[in-house]
């Protein structure tokens, strides 16, 4: 009797603990445990499809093969090396792209002259997809690192500029009048009204910028590169080792989620006053 109860009790308790840990983790990530149902179902379907050979194994590698490749690449250091290369590209491009984006956004948001001067050109600029820039960039930058960073930076500039500009333009004039009543200097207006009021927009622009950077990265690495996560995927496709492609997708997805979560965390720390709205 006591044996039965103990075994009966231990199992759910063990599982319960795991659920609790998992639930806690997802909660911290700002997700609900319910959100895990769909990925798990997809994973199940994937495994099921492989088991029943719905698709040729060369086209749809089984999950354990993907996992195994991931382990091998990790152990050989290939994964970290390629990820480091890609993350460096992303890092520089986000730094350059968002700096330019913030500068443009602030200039156009704060100065009528700058807006009249820059906005028409900027609007035309946004119409070109990153692909369109590449032939021109190749002429000036060759096909080395400079090209990649320039192309990805361009992808970052657009959403960051637009969000920053809109964030500043939409600052309630009521609050700007308050600043005038209390005789704020220009720098006080900037630091104490414009910046806090536009912060949510700045963050959302930055997040969009990072997302665009990933898209552009994969594209650029597919096009001309000998290392990086995107390159890993091209290579895998050419060798018909689709498990490598899946590894690439998985890594990009995970890094993307990790970046997004840490940004969201930073954002909520900087904006405790907005708690009510969330």
């Amino acid at each position: 009797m006591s044996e039965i109860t103990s075994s009966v009790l231990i199992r759910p308790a063990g599982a319960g603990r795991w659920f609790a840990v998992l639930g806690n983790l997802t909660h911290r990530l700002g997700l609900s445990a319910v959100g895990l149902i769909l990925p798990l179902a997809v994973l199940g379907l994937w495994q099921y499809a492989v088991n029943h050979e719905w698709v040729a194994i060369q086209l749809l590698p089984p999950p354990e093969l993907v996992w195994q490749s991931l382990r091998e690449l990790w152990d050989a250091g290939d994964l970290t090396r390629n990820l480091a290369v890609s993350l460096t590209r992303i890092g520089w491009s986000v730094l350059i792209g968002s700096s330019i984006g913030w500068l443009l956004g602030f200039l156009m948001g704060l100065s009528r002259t700058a807006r009249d001067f820059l906005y028409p050109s900027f609007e035309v600029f946004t119409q070109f997809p990153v692909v369109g820039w590449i032939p021109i960039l190749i002429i000036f930058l060759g096909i080395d690192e400079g090209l990649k960073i320039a192309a990805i930076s361009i992808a970052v500039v657009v959403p960051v500029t637009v969000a920053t500009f809109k964030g500043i333009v939409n600052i309630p004039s009521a609050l700007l009048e308050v600043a005038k009543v209390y005789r704020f200097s220009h720098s006080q207006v900037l630091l104490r009204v414009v910046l806090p009021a536009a912060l949510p927009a700045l963050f959302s622009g930055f997040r969009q910028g990072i997302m665009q950077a990933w898209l552009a990265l994969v594209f650029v690495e597919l096009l001309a590169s000998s290392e990086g996560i995107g390159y890993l995927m091209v290579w895998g496709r050419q060798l018909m080792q689709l498990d490598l492609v899946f590894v690439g997708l998985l890594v990009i997805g995970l890094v993307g989620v990790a970046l997004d979560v840490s940004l969201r965390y930073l954002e909520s720390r900087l904006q405790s006053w907005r708690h009510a709205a969330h």
Partner: protein
Amino acid sequence: MAHAATLEIKNLNKQYQVGDKSLPVLEDISLSIKPGEFVSIVGSSGCGKSTLLKLLIGLEDQYQGDILLDGKRIVGTSLERGIVFQEHRLFPWLTVEQNISIGLLNNTELSAEEKTNSIQEHIELVGLKDFANAYPYQLSGGMSQRVAIARALVNRPEVLLLDEPFGALDAFTRAYLQQELQRIWEKEGITMILVTHDVEEAVYLGDRVVVMQPRPGRIKRVIDVNLPRERTRSSAKFTAIKEEVLREFADTPDTVEELTTQTTVNEAPKNSFLTADALCY
């Protein structure tokens, strides 16, 4: 500061440019306000009350005529003139205490310690000691408006302008804040100009009630309220003055209803998101 000032408005005219048309909003406003006086201004929506306050505070400088404070023409905004807007206009990212301290940000007369003390005093004055560290989203409408009043008072301005400050509040809170305002006015001895479309409020608080009429905004009549304070709203004299003010609206029937119903109907705050022009220097 804190000594009250004489405010003189002479032949004030104001137009807004709407498209290519010039829309007259204020026409030949003349009014002389004694130091420490409490003047109420009533009039239906759209008759230019907020515009008048905007001119007096110095947020708008396109006008004809003179606005003189102790004989000197006003130029731009000044810490000697405070305003409480119809909406509280607190910075949502600052706490109650920080919002009030905004009033003293550019005050050069007080030392850092005096500022801290003054902020604490004013938090207590408006009864928000327990909420000093609360954010605006955690406050009720009445509390927010009290913070806005404290922010305007903390500089001890010579003149305080109030633009329908209690319009959005329930009758109970409004009556309470009216009394508070009167107490502060008596204590600080500053000049106050209260815009309202609640006739009872105007008579309750004002030494004089200025009745405005619309299109374009003009002064129709100025009525003295010769009643000792604390005033009783139900007294015969009070009611008589209230009736007298209301009669001024008799020839514009559409406004009478609005004014007699002890209006809690506040204009929805105008969409305050405008083009970035407000920011352009």
